[in-house]
């Protein structure tokens, strides 16, 4: 009984300790961001690795998610003779929810895991401590550009996802199923509000960008410097990011659209 309590207490303390280390690292990274600005080349390289290389998966999944939405919603709406509101439903679903959330989940799998593995391996091969020896701060040189790249890429990727999804819904709804083209676009423009819907979606994806990049970088930086430790950290990145994004999405939705 006592040993069981002790284990419980230790795991609780460990969790809080990790949370504390993660928060401290977050503050250090924020402090390191100003020193990235004079060295934009580092940021550009990370934007390439994090953003550009994720475009293909975002394009393909956005297109297919939009097409599936168009198909499924059409089947439901046509029963009520309301297939002309296919446009607003597809656009609102994508802009408010699926765009930011699915992008963040794909980002965790595609870019977050790569970030963790890269940083974890840098740590395992003692590149980070080597940098410290040469009086180069690895937080400013390695972590801050990666964090900034994740933070900047996410809203752009989410916007691409939503835009491509709307086009996918258009292909299926208008091209395949015969919804009126004019009502698809005009009803969409009528119902989707720039500030309330599009901007809140962008805010969501900015928050997800911070969280996904933070978790990925922390897991890599905090990984045990062994091959097993790096592999475990990579798994944790994907799992924790997905859970955090889905949980935060509910809270943000309740705050933004809950009235």
């Amino acid at each position: 009984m006592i040993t069981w309590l002790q284990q419980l207490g230790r795991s609780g303390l460990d969790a809080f300790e990790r949370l504390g280390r993660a928060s401290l690292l977050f503050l250090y990274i924020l402090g390191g961001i100003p020193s990235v600005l004079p060295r934009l080349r580092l940021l550009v390289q990370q934007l390439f690795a994090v953003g550009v290389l994720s475009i293909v998966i975002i394009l393909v999944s956005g297109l297919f998610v939009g097409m599936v939405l168009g198909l499924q919603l059409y089947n439901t709406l046509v029963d009520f003779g309301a297939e002309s509101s296919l446009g607003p439903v597809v656009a609102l679903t994508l802009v408010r929810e699926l765009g930011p959330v699915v992008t963040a989940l794909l980002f965790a799998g595609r870019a977050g895991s790569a970030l963790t593995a890269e940083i974890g391996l840098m740590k395992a091969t003692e590149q980070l401590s080597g940098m410290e020896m040469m009086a180069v701060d690895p937080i400013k040189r390695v972590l801050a550009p990666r964090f900034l790249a994740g933070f900047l890429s996410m809203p752009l990727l989410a916007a691409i996802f939503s835009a491509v999804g709307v086009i996918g819904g258009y292909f299926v709804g208008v091209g395949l199923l015969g919804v009126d083209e004019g009502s698809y676009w005009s009803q969409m423009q009528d119902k989707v509000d720039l500030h309330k819907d599009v901007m809140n979606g962008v805010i969501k994806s900015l928050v997800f960008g911070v969280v996904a990049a933070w978790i990925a970088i922390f897991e890599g930086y905090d990984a045990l410097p062994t091959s097993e430790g790096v592999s475990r950290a990579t798994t944790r990145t994907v799992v924790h990011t997905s859970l955090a994004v889905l949980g935060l999405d509910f809270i943000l939705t309740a705050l933004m659209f809950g009235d």
Partner: protein
Amino acid sequence: MFHSRSVEIWVGVFIAAGMAALFMLAMKVSNLSTATETGGYDVTAKFQNVSGLKVRSAVMASGVTVGRVTHISYDPKTFEAVVTLHIGDDFKSFPTDTSASILTSGLLGEKYVGLEPGGEEEVLKNGDTIHLTQSSLILEQMIGQFLYSKASEGKSTDGGASK
């Protein structure tokens, strides 16, 4: 390091594509292109009943959107709903005896405020009030009245037949 020139080009493409997607969401998907933002004037109208009307509902004249509802409140003295209409600068020539009614687009569609111009020479200005108003029709009340009148009609014809 790998070819930094092509890396930079690809990052440029990425940022441009993201911006283009945001731009498309703003212009093509959302209502930015149809919104009547700055400019225009406010008039108020009092209605007995505004059920179903919402802030941002359209204000239409002859089926053309000329403005938006910006505020709905309740006047505790006259027990009426006070609706503020924001009408665009392009539509400055509504006479002072314009009437406003709350209409429905389609059978179950959204409520909007319909303006019917009158014949006065003077035009509505910022802060003016529209006096001729017609409230929104409440479907339940209408069905109730219809059923009631049908029922009483049925009774009287029954009575007539039995005599």
